[in-house]
């Protein structure tokens, strides 16, 4: 009973945090939706840990709780992979930005040099 209380409260606390972050626009929609979906699965499980016992038996896992742990770890791994993928995309974008910036600066320097040349030949 005590354990159910601890896990259930943790789940609700996380839910509240994520909804509040979304409300304050600190979390982008795509990440927020992901975490909300996770919590909607996790909260019933934290209240009724035996919910998955039948599925566990079917898969040959000793208890529903170890199945949840296993699935949890797989899910966290997937999230890590996803974040690495997002970071790679971001790195590629900043690289493109830096190139654009350097090209612009080269263009401006070239224009300025051309103008100075004109002025000095005039004078």
């Amino acid at each position, binding site marked *: 009973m005590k354990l159910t209380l601890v896990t259930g409260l943790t789940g609700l606390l996380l839910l509240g945090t994520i*909804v509040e972050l*979304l409300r304050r626009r600190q979390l*982008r*929609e795509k990440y*927020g*939706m992901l975490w909300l979906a996770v919590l909607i699965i996790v909260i019933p499980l934290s209240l009724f840990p035996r919910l998955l016992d039948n599925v566990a038996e079917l898969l040959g896992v000793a208890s529903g709780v170890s199945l949840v742990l296993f699935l949890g770890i797989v899910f966290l791994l997937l999230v890590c992979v996803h974040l690495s993928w997002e970071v790679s995309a971001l790195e590629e*974008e900043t690289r*493109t*930005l830096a190139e*654009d910036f350097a090209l612009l600066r080269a263009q401006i320097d070239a224009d300025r040099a051309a103008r100075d040349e004109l002025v000095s030949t005039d004078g």
Partner: protein
Amino acid sequence: MVNGKRTLIIIPALNESGSIADVVGEVRGELPGVDVLVVDDGSTDRTADVAAAAGARVAKLPYNLGVGGAMRLGYRYARDNNYDVAIQIDADGQHDPRYVPKLVDLLDDNDLVIGARFAGEGDYNVRGPRRWAMVMLSAVLSRVARTKLTDTTSGFRAANRRVIEMFAGWYPAEYLGDTVETLVHTARRGFRIRQVPVAMRKRMAGTPSHSPAKAMIYLGRAFAVLTLALIRR
């Protein structure tokens, strides 16, 4: 100038080299004295070159930011260059620039004016989940904005200075955020929104961004974005 107001037409474009020249040409022909800014959102075709040749100013983004990202750039340009009115028009030729003066007229008493399908003019039809999504969005957003809105995802909008100022600092880049969330945000801040019936045409070239298979996902996302917009502040 449209009705004495300095007007900027903002056209977000992604791979629209087939239609952009005609759209820019038509806008400049119908509305002499307006400035046209095409925001090329990382197109892989010659959209930017074609638009510039047709007489538009072109802002080329280094990579794709989505319609919302392109539009915030457009509104920043409008704010920095002191325009009275900024009007968003699609690059595929579906919006008829002859409606622009009507939109600008209504800005005298409103802050954001939307050119809407399904409001009596034209015969643009949608069915299935996409239609349900539109019905849901219209019903909810009409209540939030306290005015009848039938086409909440329309990309044909006119904004006055106050709304330009707001959009230049805040404009969501997320899918559907650029239409649905901006409406909720604008209405909540006390701006007046109005719609004008417009006839929509078939796109001139290129492919539409939505396939029927995606309609169901669209409905789900519309619901999620709407809920989020309503609980946000």
